[in-house]
């Protein structure tokens, strides 16, 4: 667990073993998501798929993208982008939900014609 990333004695070189381990983990998780995707998880299908995808993305960010050893500020920027997406999603969902009744009304009218 190296936390001496703020010193300037050169950037961190990720050991090849770690890279291989990450690749194997990512491939296994892909297999897992395919298997769970075909199973009936009683409404939790999407949640499970998203949790696996998030775990995969976190491994890629921390190891492949060096965020674990990098300056914390770079990671903060990335985290910030994810938070902005959350905000974006929240507002759009509120808005779409708000207008849905009038959309449905229109569709019922269309069916009647």
């Amino acid at each position, binding site marked *: 667990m190296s936390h001496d990333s703020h010193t300037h004695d050169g950037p961190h070189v990720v050991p090849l073993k770690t890279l291989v381990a990450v690749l194997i983990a990512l491939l296994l998780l892909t297999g897992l998501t395919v298997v769970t995707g075909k199973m009936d998880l009683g409404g939790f299908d999407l949640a499970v798929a998203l949790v696996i995808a998030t775990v995969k993305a976190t491994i890629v960010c921390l190891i492949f993208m060096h965020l674990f050893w990098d300056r914390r500020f770079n990671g903060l920027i*990335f985290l910030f982008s994810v938070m902005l997406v959350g905000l974006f999603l929240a507002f759009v*969902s509120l808005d779409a939900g708000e207008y849905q009744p009038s959309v449905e009304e229109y569709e019922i009218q269309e069916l009647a014609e």
Partner: protein
Amino acid sequence: MTSTTVTAAEAHAHGEGHGHGDHPPFLQHHFTDPAQQFDAAKLGLWVFLLTEVLFFSALFVLYTSYRALHPEVFAYASNFLDTNLGATNTAVLLVSSFTVAWGVRNAQLGQRKLLMINLVITLLCAGTFMGIKYVEYSHKYHEGLLWGGNHHSIFKADAEEIPESVKEHSKAWSTGIPEAGVPAAKALSPSMRRKVGTFFATYFLLTGLHGIHVLIGMILLTWLLIRAGLGHFSPEYYTPVDLGALYWHLVDLVWIFLFPLLYLIR
């Protein structure tokens, strides 16, 4: 006012006075040392990646809000996507992400040949990804699985293959269970057909935008390969390799989410 101008001018003159002798050739004059230059470049790339995340998020937000309102449309339309091809493409991209991460390691350690080999493998993976994408797109084109009003999917010859969720949504509108060879879209109600068209519009926009990023990545990787061949990189200077790899990982990150969201809907 005057004093600041003078100081700036002096500093400038001082900077010029340094000449090129004691600078590494890659160090630009407005940076104090290579470490600062590297950090600045990396910070810039992370800010760029932030804009990329937000760029893609517009389509992801469309996807999420539409799926929340019409889950049945996604369950229906996902039947027309090939999970095996999607999973293969995921594996291909993951391997390419690994080789490019290894490439960064090679650059840091000054292993020029290995770096070039890893860049070539990454390029081959990217090419394979686009090849599989081409197979998928042309299949969809021929099956009429297109966006909006152009959507006119046809059931396969074997009626047994029609998935339950398809039958369910077709029955509600047409007279009975759809038959093989009958255009599936015709069995759908107009509003359902429109929504399925919207799903495929979202599918093509998401995968298309991602595909464009893969193509741009291939150009970047080729450029890195040429520069590596010319011996431009060393353990002291490998910034382009590092930043190119970060961009390539983002392309992989987007696909990590696209795969389960598009292909793995029950």
